[in-house]
């Protein structure tokens, strides 16, 4: 893509950020969501998080990871163990990333 095309692409992407994030706030018309949908939305952030995270951990190049010596699996397992122990997000990141780097750089996984 040329510089000019990339520039247009980026402008469009910016508009997409504005429109998707404010989608149901675009219309001035007052309208209410049905109560069942409001209750269901409680699950939306959790479902999105699980949906983004699971393939990143379990898949490599579109297939289930077959080898247990996988730096990402190790990082996720270590992060999960840490979270069960201490309930902290930062520790989950640090322990997981640290072990992942150790396995990659130290053990050559």
């Amino acid at each position: 893509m040329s510089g000019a095309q990339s520039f247009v692409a980026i402008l469009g992407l910016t508009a997409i950020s504005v429109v998707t994030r404010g989608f149901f706030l675009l219309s001035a018309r007052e309208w209410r969501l049905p109560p069942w949908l409001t209750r269901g939305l409680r699950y939306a952030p959790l479902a999105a998080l699980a949906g983004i995270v699971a393939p990143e951990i379990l898949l490599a190049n579109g297939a289930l990871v077959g080898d247990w010596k996988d730096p990402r699996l190790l990082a996720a397992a270590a992060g999960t163990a840490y979270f069960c122990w201490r309930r902290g997000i930062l520790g989950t990141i640090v322990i997981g990333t640290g072990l992942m780097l150790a396995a990659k750089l130290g053990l050559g996984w």
Partner: protein
Amino acid sequence: MTTNAGAVNHREEFRRGLREIVEPSFGISAWALVTGVAMIKSGLSVPLATLMSLAVYAGSAQLAALPLMAAGAPLWVVWAAAFCMNLRFVIFSAHWRKYFGHFPRAKRLALTYVAADLNYVLFVRRFPDPEPSPEQVPYYLGSVCWSWLSWEIPSLIGIALADRIPAEWDLGFAGVLALLGLAYSTLSGRNSWVAALVAAAAAVAAFHLPLKLNIVVAIAAGVGVGMLLDRLWPDSAEARR
């Protein structure tokens, strides 16, 4: 809202919003660093990468758009992919309307333009009742100020240092670990566990759908199962928080 007591409360809420996002934002910063690097490595010039970081401000949409832009895909394909990556924001915006719907349009859209996933999750955890209240905007502003800086600064550093960080280190995975920890902290009650597991399984099973539609399938499956369980087999009151 304009009394002295209210003003003090506002500052406290701003700080609270800021404080609650500091910890989960570290992994997001690592993700931003990697996104900065990826923009340069996929062939964008430094000015264009900087513009993309500051204006688009949507990591997963940026990462999805980059290989398509590098491959010279038509603009509509790039935009369609980014839109699908952002469909979750459409779902979130229905929820934001409950809190911000009474503001003028320009204010509503300016507020939600900077609403990242973390801001949404933390805001809904702080204000579980979907009704407007005066603490919400200061809390929200504290939250988005920190997350904007914690994304943009490392992203710009990544743009500057692109050629010196080895891609094999896979540092973007720190962002996934941040989302994983956040998911764990969002779990409350049996039905939310089931919904999360169903969403995870659906995202993996539907992975080969184009344009990251598997994320949309996961959200639909998780929300659908959660709602069904709430009807058939409600959690006890304290598990719901």
